[in-house]
């Protein structure tokens, strides 16, 4: 008898269930790419058979952090850059939950970069969506880790002297087993990629290009976009690390020139997830740990039985 009966419930799911009934209404600007992420999640979740109460959406701080205010699931709006450590612990505590982490490029690639690297390295079975608008939005338009070199802002008045970070290549090197890029302007592809990411057993990183019409007016709206799987110009094997790495490198290079490449870049279905690795060394309980606290028959070990070594 589970204490978490929302999990695994078999029923018809309407995408409206993920929309909060009365309020809050999104505070994102008109034309913001964040709406695209929200929409693709609302479409993807029913299609993968997940109900609002078996999903935990963990966000950071920024415009993107408000995702779970407008997506009706269990939500944890954490602090700047820390969505991943909160999310992966929730998954370890109750692996039956569908855990989705989300944040912006400043949140994930800047202040939370260390957590991103290590969560990818460990291959936790969670989905990580980064709203990448190449700018700090909520704080009004400062240069971010993905802003192009030369980007001018109030904090970089002479133009940024820094080369932008390479999110896809970084994630691959760190150990992510699913890496994709999509764009808000490409809703069909976005939905499909989000579905794949959720269903992937391991760390699935989606770099989601979300245009910022308010603070990044100079930047393109990420159109026209090219799907590297659809286009005849690109041919590479998403299961081959080397080919994936080359394709990622090219994608990151050409974005600076205004060419928007999207699609799946790396998919490794063979790599065990972190929970599986942890179980293999005998350090992961068989049953979800969270269930045990509701199990009246559970036997709780006590320190009295450990005292032999001290007498």
């Amino acid at each position: 008898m589970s204490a978490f009966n929302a999990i695994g419930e078999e029923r018809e799911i309407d995408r409206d269930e993920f929309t909060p009934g009365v309020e809050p209404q999104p505070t994102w600007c008109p034309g913001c790419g964040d709406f695209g992420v929200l929409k693709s999640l609302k479409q993807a979740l029913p299609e993968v058979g997940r109900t609002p109460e078996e999903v935990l959406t963990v966000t950071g701080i920024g415009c993107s952090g408000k995702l779970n205010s407008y997506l009706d699931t269990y939500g944890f709006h954490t602090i700047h850059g820390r969505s991943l450590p909160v999310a992966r612990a929730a998954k370890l505590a109750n692996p039956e939950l569908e855990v989705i982490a989300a944040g912006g490029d400043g949140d994930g690639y800047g202040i939370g970069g260390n957590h991103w690297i290590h969560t990818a390295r460990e291959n936790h079975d969670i989905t990580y969506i980064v709203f990448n608008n190449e700018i700090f939005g909520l704080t009004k338009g400062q240069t971010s880790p993905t802003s192009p070199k030369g980007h001018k802002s109030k904090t970089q008045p002479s133009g940024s002297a820094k080369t932008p970070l390479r999110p896809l290549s970084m994630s691959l090197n760190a150990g992510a087993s699913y890496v994709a890029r999509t764009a808000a302007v490409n809703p069909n592809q976005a939905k499909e990629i989000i579905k794949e990411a959720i269903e992937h057993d391991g760390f699935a990183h989606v770099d989601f290009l979300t245009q910022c019409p308010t603070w990044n007016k100079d930047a393109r709206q990420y159109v026209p976009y090219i799907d590297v799987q659809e286009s005849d110009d690109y041919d590479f094997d998403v299961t081959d690390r080397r080919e994936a790495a080359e394709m990622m490198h090219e994608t990151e290079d050409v974005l600076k020139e205004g060419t928007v490449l999207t699609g799946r870049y790396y998919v490794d279905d063979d790599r065990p997830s972190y929970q599986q690795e942890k179980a293999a060394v005998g350090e992961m309980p068989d049953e979800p740990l969270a269930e045990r606290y509701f199990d009246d028959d559970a036997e709780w070990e006590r320190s009295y039985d450990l005292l032999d070594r001290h007498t």
Partner: protein
Amino acid sequence: MSDDELIWRIAGGSGDGIDSTSQNFAKALMRSGLNVFTHRHYPSRIRGGHTYVEIRAADKDVQSRGDGYNFLLSLGDSFARNPQEEAYYGNEEIKPLSENLDELREGGIIVYDEGLISEEDVEAINLEERAEENDWHVFPMDLRGLAKEHGREVMRNTAGVGVTAALLDMELEHIEDLMSDAMSDDILEANLEILHEAYDTVNEEYDFEHDLRAPTGDHGAEQALLSGSNAIAYGAIDGGCRFIAGYPMTPWTDVFTILSQNFPDMGGVSEQVEDEIAAAALAVGASHAGVKAMSGSSGGGFALMSEPLGLAEMTETPLVLVESMRAGPSTGMPTKPEQGDLEFVLYTSQGDSSRVVFAPGNIEEAYEQTRLAFDIAWEYQIPTIIIYDQKLSGENMNVDVEFFDREPEPGLGSTMTEEELKEAAHDASGKFHRFQHEPDNDNHVSPRSLPGQKGGRYLATGNEHSPVGHISEDPDNRVFQMERRVQKLEAIRDELDEERPSNQTYFGEDDAEYGIITWGSSQGAVVEAVERLNEQGHSVRGISVSDMMPFPEQEMTEFLESVDEAMVVEMNATAQFRGLIQKELGRFGEKLTSLLKYNGNPFEPAEVVEGYEVNLEDGDREPTAQVRIEPAAGD
């Protein structure tokens, strides 16, 4: 001061097996019926360097290190670096002998390994002359040679224990038993041979002129020897904790290690992660999903936890953190104790503090208050912090085994079941009222749900939020939520005052003129000092405080009203606890003086006695110990 106690110090290089040898010898003394207390002194390096462990053993209660010590077993430093290059490193081999002499009591015993420490070096430190002056009994023994002859050189600590036992007229039985538990086959055989050979050699070759003998005693009940870190880890286990996340840092690593080693067999999860921000954030995430979780660190690592700690306060996520203090600021002295993080732990993170902080004063309190921390945290949905230090972390004391014979408490406090959620308040769209303005109870706690439960959906956020968790800046909602969080602390204070045994420890005379106040791990030395002062005819009452937040206003007021003056004893330079008393009570400033120590070593009882005497009797005199007296307000 008397020699009805043995204070045995084993000194050598880090890596010479000082820890394991002393642990076994302490157990042997405990098994022989004595009360024991250990004190560990070590440098922040892996090999070499001067390190010692001191074991105090007596028939009476021992809760602190003593004043000085009376038996030195100096192994010398076998990891001394490049002794040929004295220009760079000096002579390290002899340091475990030369650097320990100042605190050795008159009439004390010295055993040193002449197989490692050369005759010239011993002459160079004038040992003979000093021994004569202080009536020390010196026994140079070739421990290294003896060990080599029957086994391997590293077994010279066993030879040292054999010599110790002979000189103290101890039976070898308990020592042999402990060796048999820890070793087997050839190794055991060689060690036993070495033990006996050393024992017999001393008895055959020396006439004893010293008076010191091992004391005798009887416990009447089975004892366990354990450290503060053990006690905290065990309190967590019995409090139902099954998730820990951490990053290594001395001295907190001990608790992290003990739980990491035990959790796999208990179905628990331990995570070593990228940094302390992640460590505390993981504990928050696991707790949010329904598991009793903890994290911890020492000062520098705890600084990184400020953010997730604040998040736990705002989202009312139950959480236990431990902070094992060491001398600061910054990297400070990593292996030395200090009580300098009190204000930091009470207030770090933005906004008004909403947390519980306990500072256990000894091994039993460390267990008790860690259990309590899990109870309080899950009932009141509030982060609870155990603040202790390098001293309590590493010191070992014997405790009645029966003390631990208690049922575990894995309950999740004010967490709802799905059944209960059916009856709970929801908004029109079906979201659960996780943060009610006025919950239907006296303790201001709004019951929580867990992700995956039916009917419990809500948003947790570090922003100020409405009852269902939506971000809200509405003034009325803000005041409701803010006041409810603050009132939880008042409810906790009421529970601690009215429904639980006091966490404060009282000692000395009830009706005394003078008070001595301390907190945390300085308790043991102060208890002993107060006992001595009263024996000397003074009238002194002591209190060791554990409740740092919410502050025990009632108990402290009663205590301070009952005495004419009081001295606050703590290991820091700015009298942080005394400041807390004045802040919380708003009075008594003119009654309170401070005795402060911050040289990296914990208080010895005699230093507290002297502090009292200087303070009360002749304020013009400077204390001889490396301490500072801070006068009362207006003095």
